[in-house]
């Protein structure tokens, strides 16, 4: 079941993405409405991170495209914010939690300009929202995994965007913090922002999200939670790989065959 909406925050059109010629996402076609808190859900290796990275332009697509607010990413970068998986950077870096949160302001500052007092204040505010204001001066490698995750969250908040894409923001976070963060995300949704979150835990997914995307190499379902969260669809997403799809993918890789014919 794939439900499309008019005037979406995020539209993904026929997206196919490969690593070394092996497609890991096949023909994803979906829309996410504005002002929702949406979850991307699927088993390990389903391609959730790949989907987000491709949408953010960090991975090239074999075919298809993504648009935000009806425009390509390049025209709306200021309105889009991205929270990568925590493991994507080396935390043993000479920087404080505040330094990292401040990075969220860089896009607005532009080249050559140093962060101003107002930016610092805003970054501090964002640290406060995620309960990290007490750690602003702390060197980032001396934070716990969950605290590092929250610093990333603060950086995204400091971007002050309209659409947020977050890759597993709850990984390594304790239950109390998770509740606080969900509260925060819900408030953002109520303020008209769109938040799309890669999430692992099926138990909480139905409570957290009002829009759900089920993914497992291909799009299984996308729509409002009450319509998507059915036994049948969940089983389809979690019921193992599609055997033929995997085999074709491996074949493409072995033969170094393009998943799409070159255009033109």
């Amino acid at each position, binding site marked *: 079941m794939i439900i499309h909406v008019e005037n979406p925050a995020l539209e993904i059109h026929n997206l196919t993405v490969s690593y070394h010629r092996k497609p890991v996402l096949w023909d994803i076609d979906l829309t996410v409405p504005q002002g929702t808190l949406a979850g991307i859900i699927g088993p390990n290796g389903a391609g959730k991170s790949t989907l987000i990275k491709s949408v953010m332009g960090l991975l090239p697509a074999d075919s298809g495209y993504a648009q935000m607010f009806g425009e390509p990413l390049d025209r709306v970068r200021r309105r889009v914010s*991205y929270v990568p998986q925590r493991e*994507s950077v080396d935390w043993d*870096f000479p920087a404080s939690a505040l330094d990292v949160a401040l*990075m969220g302001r*860089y896009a607005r500052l532009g080249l050559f300009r140093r962060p101003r007092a107002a930016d610092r204040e805003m970054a501090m505010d964002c640290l406060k929202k995620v309960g990290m204001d007490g750690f602003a001066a702390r060197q980032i490698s001396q934070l716990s995994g969950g605290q590092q995750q929250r610093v990333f969250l603060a950086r995204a908040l400091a*971007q002050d965007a309209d659409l947020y894409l977050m890759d597993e923001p709850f990984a390594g976070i304790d239950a109390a913090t998770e509740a606080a963060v969900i509260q925060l995300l819900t408030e953002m949704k109520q303020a008209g922002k769109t938040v799309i979150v890669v999430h692992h835990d099926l138990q909480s997914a139905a409570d957290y999200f009002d829009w759900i995307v089920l993914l497992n190499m291909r799009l299984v379902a996308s729509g409002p939670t009450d319509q998507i969260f059915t036994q049948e669809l969940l089983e389809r997403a979690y019921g193992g790989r599609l055997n033929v799809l995997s085999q074709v993918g491996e074949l493409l890789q072995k033969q170094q065959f393009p998943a799409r014919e070159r255009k033109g």
Partner: protein
Amino acid sequence: MDTILDALMLSNPNVRYVVFGSVLLGCAAAVVGAFTVLRKRSLVGDAVAHSVLPGVCGAFLVTQTKHPLALLIGAFISGWLSLVVIDFITRKTRVKEDSAIGIVLSVFFGAGILMLTAIQQTGSAAQSGLDKFLFGKAASMLLDDVMIFGGVAALLIAIVALFFKEFFLLSFDRDFARVIGLRVPLLDLLLSTMTVLAVVVGIQAVGVVLMAALLITPAAAARYWTERLGIMVVLAGLFGMMAGVTGAYISTAAPSMPTGPWIVVVTSVVFLLSVLFAPRRGVVAQAVRYKRNRTQITDENILKALYQMGESASEFTTVHSTEEIHGHRRMQLLTLQQGLARLRRQGYVEHHHRGWCLTSEGIERGKRVARLHRLWEVYLSRHLHLAPDHVHDSAESIEHILTPELEEQLASELNYPEVDPHNSPIPYRKKAKQKPETGTRNA
């Protein structure tokens, strides 16, 4: 001696140029190198340094002069070429990056040596002085060299200052830099170009073989002193300047000496000192902290022992002999004696001819350790559900590190328990909120 004095006074204009140039290029190499280190590209820096040699020789062969501009261009071209080749091999073949770096370094450097030998055999090497580029000779810099190399160095430092924010983000999180719309490929290109240029301007003073030391070591040393990128870059620059000055002086004072090895000596000494003496990260600071902790643990264990002995006799000012204390609390006898002497100096115990007794300060501190120990035991058994015989060891160390704030929090969270899991009473300070009957009246 005269020459050294002359050099130190900078009275000779030629020496002045050399010193000035060396300071600038030492600083530039170190500042650019800070980002090389943080981006984990140190090996690439070394490869580039070796790879500029064929460019230098090629420039000489083509122009038959040693004009700095020609050499700069030649070195720049071959340095850049090495980067392109490393990138090409890593991307288009199955060879991993470290192997690609090794291959490129040896091939380019080998070719450079070959060309150098060929030039030497034509006999023009003597006046060309090209062999100086192997190990460097700061003193051979002329005004022209200093103007051009120093100018490039100053430019590099200015670019780092200008793009500091962008380089910071790029080194920490490339993906995020791309997502917010920074032109990451362009910035990469800029940083790589700057690395090549830093190497190129440095080689006359340091030589290609050891240039990487000027690029990498100051930054690696600076990392020990600070957790802030800005300070790290400035410190690296200062260390690079120090290396530059030293190299220049030695080179002018002892012209037969190659400069590169001396610069390496200076940067290595700075690095070693950093490893040893940097606050927090340094070996010595760690040892001092360790020693301080050991002392504190010893002292508090002695006070606790005296307190416990007083507790069982309901009399805290009794005099106990060293042997008695030793019997109560096992530790090395020497450690105990030293500890008692220290505690006496600090006013926690008094010495009488039959032995030792607690002062009122000593009683308070011993009581506090006993209190923390027992509170922690209660905490463990209540919240971690540990059996009473499992809580002691943990409490033995936690009793020494709990701060007064944590102590207060612990006590109020546990609601001021009266006894620990072994039924020993928990001695509170007189004024602590407590039920009246639990007070120890001896305090």
